[in-house]
């Protein structure tokens, strides 16, 4: 398949079941909601070393937030519920409870309820106050700038992690420009996050390494400088490859995000140095979710 001169590989991205949750951070203004959200979702690019994958889903209008203030919706993904709950609690405690004027709310109704502020309340040293409003329990924790308001729990749901596509371009600036365009469009899609810095990752990996202690290492087949040294997957004109990884609440959400992302890349087309779109997989053996690029773009 070729779109606007860009070859869509007949391959697929392979993704895994994950557990996900969403939280809403509000603050006096968008700036402080965003600062808190960024901190909470920082250092959360890959479950391999961060314990979770997290990202900002979108900015929320005051009319969309529980307390009528500007807010940011964040999502966290992890391989299991236990790890997810731990990450959520640790990050909320360190990055939201601490952040001026912030408040923290559930982003998912239903699901399995996992602690959001339920245990953070103990920071209140007995001065904390519970409030049940419309069936939801909130905790009011006294802090130095006033009160930290947090919902007691949020929902945990089954989700999908590891959707991805690769952008193969003739130059590094062209690859980056294309990926940026993709991310801009993908951020408009609900229920997904792109957990890497700025949503773009340049260090795609393969399973295994020559070093026994490492489980993954650089994806040499897509490293342009190794074209002559390894079993490369790159044609000679490709000088730079970047990847966008997507975690979403469902396969359909990731489908949508991939489609708008790839489309944005293709809109730049061959004229802007974009050669190919490919994807990472493990031969279909490891993950039950397969995103066939050509089907998505059909």
């Amino acid at each position: 398949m070729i779109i606007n001169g860009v070859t869509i590989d007949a391959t697929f991205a392979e993704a895994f079941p994950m557990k996900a949750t969403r939280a809403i951070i509000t603050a006096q203004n968008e700036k402080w909601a965003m600062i808190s959200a960024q901190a909470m979702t920082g250092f959360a690019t890959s479950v391999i070393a961060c314990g979770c994958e997290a990202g900002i889903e979108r900015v929320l209008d005051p009319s969309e937030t529980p307390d009528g203030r500007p807010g940011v919706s964040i999502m966290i993904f992890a391989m299991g519920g236990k790890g997810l709950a731990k990450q959520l609690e640790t990050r909320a405690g360190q990055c939201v409870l601490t952040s001026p004027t912030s408040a923290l709310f559930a982003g998912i109704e239903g699901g399995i309820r996992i602690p959001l502020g339920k245990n953070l309340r103990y920071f209140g040293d007995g001065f904390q106050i519970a409030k049940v409003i419309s069936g939801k329990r909130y905790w009011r924790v006294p802090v130095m700038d006033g009160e930290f308001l947090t919902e007691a729990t949020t929902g945990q749901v089954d989700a999908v992690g590891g959707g991805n596509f690769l952008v193969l371009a003739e130059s590094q600036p062209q690859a980056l420009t294309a990926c940026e365009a993709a991310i801009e469009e993908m951020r408009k899609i609900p229920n997904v996050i792109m957990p890497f810095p700025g949503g773009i990752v340049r260090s795609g990996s393969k399973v295994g390494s020559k070093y026994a202690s490492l489980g993954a290492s650089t994806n040499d087949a897509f490293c342009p400088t190794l074209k002559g040294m390894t079993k490369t997957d790159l044609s000679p004109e490709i000088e730079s490859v970047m990847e966008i990884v997507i975690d979403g609440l469902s396969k359909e959400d990731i489908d949508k995000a991939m489609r708008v992302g790839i489309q944005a890349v293709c809109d730049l087309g061959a004229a802007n140095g974009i050669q190919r779109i490919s994807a990472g997989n493990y031969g279909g053996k490891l993950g039950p979710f397969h995103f066939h690029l050509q089907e998505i773009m059909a």
Partner: protein
Amino acid sequence: MSALTFKLKQRPDQRVDMSPLVCHQLLGMEPLTIAAIELQCGKRKVRVDELFSLSGFDTQKIVIKNSFGKLDYIGKELSEGSITVEGDAGAYLGFGMKSGAIKVHGNVGLYAACEMKNGYLEIDGNAGDFLGAAQPGNKMGMKGGTILVKGNVGERAGDHMRRGNILIEGDAGDYCGSRMTAGTIAVMGKTGRFVGYAMRRGTLLLWNQPQLQASFNDCGAHTLAFLPILFASFKKYDSRFAETSAAFNRVRRFAGDMSELGRGEVLVRI
């Protein structure tokens, strides 16, 4: 199906225990069976049809017409359906109600919503003492649900309250929120003396500055983030509490009762 309607024929002198006439007890009952139910009235047991004329069939929608202040225990342990009271209700209205809705067009007596667990109770008129309280000897009053009173309430509203909301559009008598353990009582009108007496936890949300006792300490003026959420939850009621202009988030906070746990709060609108 039309609402099952009990129209009081004449007012007995003695109080009537209405607890058998509640939706879940009448479910599936034929009108003739209902008519033959005996109600305790003073020493007597009186057949329903001796006191009331009956019409309608829908046992999940009960209307009591010509009601007056000696009909006690209306809606006792109501667990589904709705009851509308046209007129006044006696003591222990909605005693231990678990779900559903009760609406009273008139005034209600002592201990309305006593030990209420959930559901919605709306009173157009005034409520007597011990609204949402616990029976003598019991330690736990209202545990959930919402009470809306458009008129005034008597003394000790929310005594031993544990959870839920009591919304009062009018005034509250003395000792409003006494011995509260948690929950919220909001009073748009005036409050009497000894607000929150011996309260352990819980919130009294007041539109007007009360005469506070010395065992409550001023914690200053604050903007509290939970208030907009609380007010948003009132939007669904047919009440002045639902009006956008009613909402505020700026309050002066008083903590007490220091004689007790001291973790309760009186929030006064500023």
